[in-house]
């Protein structure tokens, strides 16, 4: 028929919330200043850097002295000097350069998508940009960019530098394990079901990349070594593990050590994988020779389930690694086990374990030790716990926990996250303590692998679908075989926004889960705890908590879209805007019929034959195609960075036709390029303006580029983001009000200001950072930090008392004033210093006695930390 053009409306779905948390992938969230007196902590939920005084060894807990605003989702921090720190902002795609002495942002440096870590070496700062697989290099002093290093690996994150700074190492989190997919057209038929069910569908097969039937190569790049002078990649290191979480250079030998996990996805079928699909290791890379692997759980008998003794000692997902000064010991943060481990580096044996879940409790009490650093001459281990957003201080000699304090003065983490997150990560819910949902759903995301979780003894499942691709609303039974074959691990992010773009028939387009839609709800995954993890199913209320948590996590913005969320007209040889029109014109491409906007799914199980399928499959969302494209190429002789591609079973690599579809008439190269461009720019549900920021000071406040950036953020405010202003000068924080086009101050008595008036507040040594934040977060982040309805500057000032005692002075302040830090000075003109003694508690007050000073006078104050 003649084509009749009409367009499906693109729905922009926003889900305002007081605090959107993106499940920050912390890499090195702790650092020491070179003089060892300050502990720097990336406070991811609050988007700030917490600065702690740790100079007093008699004090059991670090003393919070400053909180400096950063970009969104800070995940790593490094100190360039005693007075300057660089913070990596994963969501903002930026580096916040902070002055620790002036307690402000000096500059915000833009970097490519999803920066993860930073290391200083050879006078340069190297930033790993995970989603773009590259390193961005800056001059550490001038902050000018000096180069970009493309990397041949997937998702580079953790960085480490050699002792002399001549080399750096970067680890690829999704490096794979040498497995790949044999397409179903080549793979042998599945074995017969064990229980008389119909024959299993023809599926692909996971095989080693060395299988003679595989015609392409899959690189084994776990770590890249870079020369810091030439910026050249000098070698790639393989054979060290599937997911290298952290790495460190041994202080004596110079050897590289890698904390990692190894995935056993070559084992087929869920019953064979039960409780036994991942290993947690330390891998030593000798200067010469093959890597040496140390299993962190060598005594676990995986054939025994349940295995309570194993659960009591298991170490799962080692995300933090630190050596003591002589390198004889390595400390490990076992993120999914809530344990620390002390490892003898001579033989890789685990000498001691420390349980951080003091006071017991279930998954809701998880700490989630993520990063660690040795301080105070190696006598203390400082640990950042991601889930509790706290800092545990450990005595390394006695291995006693000295303290656990909040990582900042305020934690905006929503209650639903606190209550439900542990169920995803807690390996203690497994049968032997070695695995959790997060073993594959790393940080609630993907692992880049396929797994065959079919069950030859399972049951057929029937789900309702409709032939909506043929515009037929009649409900039909879709029968699903338990031997489903390999399926790529799907992300758990953005699920709440994967709403169907159509509404009829309701039974067919109801949200459902898994590639095949065989799970009607998140709660219906409860069987995974027993069938795969080897543990027991959890109570329904706990599953509800897990579901509520998972529905809080949005996607990151798609960096391929324009900053104003529009589509680029020139992207990789195509016009994404034209591509959208082709996508939406269902008589030309038919894409939109099964993949309606906004998420690219109708949640329906449609006609499998139309997409060349051998079994029924849900129409999947398209929001993260840009993250998974270009990694896999099965063409004979081709080189793949990953063993798995775009399709449900890991095959499929060619955009825009990752699956066959015969109904479209888009077949000119130009149209295909346009459609590919659109798919790579697919809206994730989060606008590019979220996290975008610019720092303004007296020198650049008239810069055309700066003003253009502010204008852009103002234009996005109210629709795609809220706009806040953080910094020092006048009122501390502002929030842009799109209706009035003015900035509301954080003190009720102050009038709203125009942009010019805000910028006029800047004086020498001041700076403001204008930043887009998620819709709904503006009021809190732009003037009401604790969300109590009282503007920050109107909050009551805590009471203090100063008394004279025979020995000197006695200074007391309200114990609940967590965002105020005590300081003293000899004179009002002098430098104020932290009062970092160990206070005693007297009723509602903290109390410090101070000896009489030489000249008999001392001034005391409380200063706000932020």
């Amino acid at each position, binding site marked *: 028929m*003649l084509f009749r053009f009409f367009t499906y409306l693109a729905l922009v779905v926003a889900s305002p919330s007081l605090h959107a948390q993106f499940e920050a992938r912390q890499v090195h969230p702790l650092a020491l200043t070179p003089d060892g007196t300050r502990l720097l902590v990336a406070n991811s939920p609050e988007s700030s850097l917490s600065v702690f005084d740790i100079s007093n060894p008699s004090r059991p807990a670090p003393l919070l002295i400053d909180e400096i605003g950063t970009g969104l989702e800070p995940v790593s921090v490094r100190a360039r000097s005693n007075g300057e720190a660089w913070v990596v902002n994963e969501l903002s795609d930026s580096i916040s350069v902070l002055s620790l002495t002036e307690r402000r942002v000096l500059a915000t440096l833009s970097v490519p998508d999803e920066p993860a870590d930073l290391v200083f070496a050879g006078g340069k700062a190297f930033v790993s940009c995970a989603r773009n697989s590259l390193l961005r290099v800056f001059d550490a002093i001038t902050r000018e960019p000096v180069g970009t290093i493309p990397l041949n690996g997937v998702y580079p994150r953790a960085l480490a530098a050699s002792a002399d700074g001549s080399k750096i190492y970067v680890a690829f989190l999704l490096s794979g394990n040498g497995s790949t997919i044999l397409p179903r057209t080549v793979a042998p038929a599945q074995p017969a079901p064990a229980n008389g069910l119909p024959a299993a569908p023809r599926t692909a097969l996971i095989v080693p990349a060395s299988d003679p039937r595989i015609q392409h190569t899959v690189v084994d790049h776990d770590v890249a070594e870079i020369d810091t002078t030439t910026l050249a990649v000098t070698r790639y290191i393989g054979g060290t593990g599937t997911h290298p979480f952290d790495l460190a250079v041994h202080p004596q030998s110079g050897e590289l050590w890698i904390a990692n996990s190894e995935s056993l996805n070559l084992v087929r079928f869920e019953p064979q994988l039960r409780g036994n699909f991942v290993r947690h290791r330390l891998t030593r890379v000798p200067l010469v020779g093959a890597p040496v692997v140390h299993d962190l759980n060598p005594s676990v008998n995986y054939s025994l389930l349940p295995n309570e003794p194993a659960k009591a000692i298991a170490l799962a997902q080692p995300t933090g690694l630190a050596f003591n000064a002589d390198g004889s010991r390595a400390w490990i943060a076992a993120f999914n086990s809530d344990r620390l481990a002390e490892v003898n580096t001579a033989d890789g044996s685990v000498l001691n374990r420390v349980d951080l879940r003091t006071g017991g409790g279930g998954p809701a009490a998880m700490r989630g030790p993520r990063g660690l650093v040795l301080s105070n001459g190696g006598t203390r281990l400082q640990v950042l716990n991601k889930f509790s957003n706290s800092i545990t201080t450990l005595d390394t000699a006695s291995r006693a926990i000295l303290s656990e304090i909040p990582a900042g003065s305020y934690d905006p983490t929503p209650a639903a996250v606190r209550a439900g997150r542990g169920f995803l990560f807690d390996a203690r819910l497994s049968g032997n303590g070695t695995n959790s949902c997060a073993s594959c759903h790393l940080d609630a995301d993907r692992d880049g692998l396929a797994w065959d979780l079919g069950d030859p003894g399972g049951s057929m499942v029937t789900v309702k679908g409709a032939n909506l691709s*043929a515009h037929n609303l009649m409900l039909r039974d879709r029968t699903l075989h338990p031997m489903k074959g390999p399926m790529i691990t799907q992300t758990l992010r953005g699920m709440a926004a994967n709403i169907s773009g159509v509404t009829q028939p309701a039974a067919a387009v109801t949200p459902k889960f898994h590639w095949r839609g065989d799970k009607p709800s998140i709660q219906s995954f409860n069987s995974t705890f027993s069938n795969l993890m080897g543990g027991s199913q959890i109570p329904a209320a706990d599953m509800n908590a897990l579901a509520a948590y998972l529905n809080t996590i949005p996607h990151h913005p798609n960096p391929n879209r324009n900053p104003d969320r529009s589509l680029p007209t020139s992207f990789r040889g195509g016009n994404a805007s034209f591509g959208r029109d082709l996508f939406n014109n269902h008589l030309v491409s038919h894409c939109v019929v099964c993949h309606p906007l906004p998420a690219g799914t109708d949640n329906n199980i449609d006609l499998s034959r139309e997409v060349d399928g051998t079994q029924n499959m849900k129409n999947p969302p398209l929001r993260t195609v840009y993250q998974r494209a270009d990694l896999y190429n099965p063409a004979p002789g081709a080189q793949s960075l990953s063993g798995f591609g775009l399709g449900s079973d890991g095959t499929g690599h060619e955009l825009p036709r990752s699956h066959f579809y015969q*109904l479209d008439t888009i077949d000119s*190269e130009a149209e295909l390029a346009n459609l590919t461009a659109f798919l790579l720019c697919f809206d994730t549900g989060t606008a590019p303006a979220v996290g975008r920021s610019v720092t303004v000071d007296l020198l650049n406040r008239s810069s055309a580029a700066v003003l253009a950036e502010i204008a852009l953020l103002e234009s996005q405010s109210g629709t795609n983001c809220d706009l806040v202003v953080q910094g020092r000068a006048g009122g501390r924080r502002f929030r842009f009000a799109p209706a009035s086009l003015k900035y509301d101050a954080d003190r009720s008595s102050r009038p709203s200001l125009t942009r010019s008036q805000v910028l006029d507040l800047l004086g020498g040594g001041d700076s403001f950072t204008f930043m887009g934040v998620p819709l709904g977060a503006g009021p809190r982040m732009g003037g009401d930090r604790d969300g109590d309805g009282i503007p920050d500057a109107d909050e009551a000032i805590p009471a203090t008392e100063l008394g004279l005692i025979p020995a000197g002075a006695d200074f007391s302040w309200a114990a609940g004033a967590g965002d105020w830090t005590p300081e003293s000075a000899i004179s009002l003109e002098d430098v104020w210093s932290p009062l970092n003694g160990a206070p005693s508690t007297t009723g509602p007050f903290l109390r410090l006695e101070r000896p009489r000073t030489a000249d008999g006078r001392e001034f005391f104050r409380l200063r706000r930390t932020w």
Partner: protein
Amino acid sequence: MTTRHIAFAALLAAPLTRAATVNFHDAGNPDAAGGIGYEWSVTLDGDDVGVTPDLAGSHVGAWSWEDQSMFEPGDPTAGWTHTSQWASITLTEAAYLTIRLEANGSIPFTGSGNVGGFRPSDGFFPSFTLFSGVDQDEIPVEIADLLGANPADGEFHTYNNRGNIDWAEDLTFIGLKENSTESSAEATWLLPAGTYTLAMGSNAPSDLNPPRQGFKATFSTIPEPSSSLLAALAGGLAVLRRRR
């Protein structure tokens, strides 16, 4: 003049009256009549031949005539409306209408998967359905409601390839030619003068996923016997009259 002479005269006259027209409709030459968006309009008299030219738009999808995955036992069979091509045919005289649909490797195409600059045609299994009448109005409201369609669209996304089409109430099923093995298909009907609708598509085996296929359609008429006899008689009478 003998009877033989009369018949001869009639045959001589026939070529002189051939006036087939075959028009293609696309964005540059839209069919503004409404209803079904016919790609082709064909007019034939009783002894005529019309052929679709090798235009870039002469192509159909793999399962455009029948897609077995779209229906289950007991359901009406269906083809894809917007991957098939439709012709409105006007017969000015009663005639035997022969329709031949065949693979055509000469349809210009430079996009992905082209074969030397032409549409592929090796996956084409031509099949077609003939209806009487043309449908150039909106979908009946009650049918549109049932289908979830917009009445103003004039057509729906699938059609019954083996019977009457509910959303095209002005059409009446006449017959079909089903083929899933050959590269050409042909069928002949004896039809009175009037208007007809032809749905042309492919009936590729279900395990093949060919891209769009180039085609050629040939429409030919020979006189219906009574018309032919009348024409011959009229021609003979005219000759005799002149001789007198």
